[in-house]
């Protein structure tokens, strides 16, 4: 006896049940708990919007959101600008038989621990680090630059990671692009630049958008990189969330801040999805 034999609707449900159960247990239930928690006070008590009002009325709190959005936007743009030519070289200029190896080398940074990688950047960017020593050694600068413990350091750490991610999504998109599009453009008299701007780039925008969205989501929710490389000279949202938990254990306020962060990510997702839908239409 088969499941599909007894009830044609049972098989699809049986197949999706584990995923649904997983999502319910580890996303829906915790999210609902977090939602309720965000509406209570630290010392217990009834319903309150105080946690949300603190975010909107305290400049040092919403400044964290502004910092998060600024850092994320900068990282996303720089990563796209670096990843696109990299993916292009991999897809178009590296011989097919070497592409797999080249891709593997490209994602090598993923193989090391995220924390170790961030601390490595801290040492590279430090006052006595490789970059400052090289610049002072060749006489370009007299005094070491402050590179570590700055927003620049945070952005550098993020870009190192996300360039690889974006390269993968854009590379996949470029590989799916039929060569006949470019041949047709050439037949119609378009040069390489025009072909790229009017044919290739628009057709690879979905890959860029997907990569950019992934970068946005992972970057805006990341705690490790800004904590290690930013030197706490400005706070981003995940750091603000963690600050509420460390000593005081203020989970209601941490929950409210997390939900606000999730709302921003949701808005970004909806904008991205809508844009992709329009593009397809």
């Amino acid at each position, binding site marked *: 006896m088969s499941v599909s034999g007894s009830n044609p609707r049972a098989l699809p449900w049986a197949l999706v049940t584990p995923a649904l159960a997983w999502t319910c247990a580890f996303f829906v239930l915790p999210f609902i708990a977090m939602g309720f928690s965000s509406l209570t006070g630290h010392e217990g008590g009834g*319903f309150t919007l105080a946690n949300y009002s603190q975010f909107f009325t305290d400049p040092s709190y919403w400044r964290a959101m502004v910092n998060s959005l600024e850092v994320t936007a900068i990282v996303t743009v720089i990563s796209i600008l670096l990843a696109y030519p990299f993916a292009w070289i991999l897809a178009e200029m590296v011989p097919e038989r070497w592409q797999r190896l080249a891709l593997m080398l490209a994602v090598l940074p993923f193989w090391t621990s995220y924390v170790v990688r961030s601390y490595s950047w801290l040492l590279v960017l430090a006052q006595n680090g490789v970059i400052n020593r090289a610049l002072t050694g060749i006489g370009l600068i007299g005094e070491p630059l402050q590179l570590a413990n700055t927003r620049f350091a945070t952005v550098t750490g993020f870009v190192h990671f996300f360039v690889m991610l974006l390269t993968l999504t854009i590379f996949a998109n470029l590989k799916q692009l039929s060569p006949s599009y470019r041949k047709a453009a050439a037949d119609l008299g378009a040069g390489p630049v025009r072909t790229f701007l009017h044919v290739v780039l628009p057709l690879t925008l979905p890959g860029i958008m997907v990569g950019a969205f992934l970068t946005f989501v992972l970057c805006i929710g990341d705690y490790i990189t800004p904590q290690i490389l930013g030197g*706490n000279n400005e706070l981003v949202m995940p750091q603000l969330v963690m600050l509420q*938990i460390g000593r005081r254990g203020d989970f209601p306020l941490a929950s409210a801040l997390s939900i606000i962060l999730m709302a921003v990510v949701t808005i970004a997702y909806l904008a991205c999805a809508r844009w992709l839908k329009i593009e397809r239409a």
Partner: protein
Amino acid sequence: MTARNPLSALKSHLSAACAAAALLLAAGGAEAADLNALIWCDHSDPALLEPFEKANDVKVNVKEFEGTGAGLAIVDQSQPGDWDVMVIDSIDVPRGVEKGLFEPLPVDKLPFADLFPEVKMDKSTIVDGKRYGITEKFGYNTIGFNKTKVDPADMQSLASLTSDKYKGKVAIYDYYLPVIGMAALAIGKKTADLTEADLPALKAELLKMKANAKLVGEVTASQTALATGEVDILVGGGEWVTAGLAKENPALDFSIPKEGAVLWSQSLAMFKDSKNKDMALKFIQYIMSPEGQARLATSSCYWGMPANKTAALTDEQKKILRFDEQPGFLARAQAYPAPNADLDKKMQDMWTEMLQAQ
């Protein structure tokens, strides 16, 4: 007893469901016959735990946490009896007692007479006449510095931390209570007397410190910054930063400035619902013994002064910890600020403002 509102009840049920799910996954990790300890990183050193495990034929399962809030959250999400002992900031012992978590300690079975009197922390470790915590390790949040890069004479005053001479050479330890305590000392206030009225002056002092600082870092980041020469001074540093690095970097040192320093101390507490109270007590006795104290004081994660004066430290270790200077240091040290919940929140928000200041 007060009636719970429906929102709290629902939240509680959902939290319990989530905790139950997490515990189901974690089942098998900790066993009742073992000793389960919620600890700070200095207790996870095998050199500290293995002698106890061998002597008592027991496995010590440890779970590290940072910050009392995070530690108490782990307890909240556990079943009663899951944990046997906990390391906690001495000033936060009452928080655990209020939650009904801790067991009074048998004073006659622990070496209270051997402790430095100044670190017994009776105000926070004794609640309603019962002692719930025993101080095991202490030290100072003060000025840590590289003596080859700064004038050691300058390090005898907290005013140096905000002077132009050291602009960009300073890191601040990222924990608001001790650094606010240091700011209080800098403006001539006693840490025990801080009130909401002092916050504007404290904030002004913190902002001056921030203007001079290159970074505000947690333990590893601030230690790395001082050790690698990224900064020359660590506000809030002390023997916990410099002593462990003394062999590799003997230039690192700390001072107790003329205004004083902030005394940190950590305590051990036993859980009321522990299923292994005899072993929990043995563990506390071991940690408080001369041998245990020496191992804890020189733990690989961070060094600190043993609370027990009879700790079996070598002469070299005592020199690094400046053991013989402790009476003078303790006389000038003030306890961590111990604000009530409302003032604590305001202090943390002030700290957030300082971090965000450009």
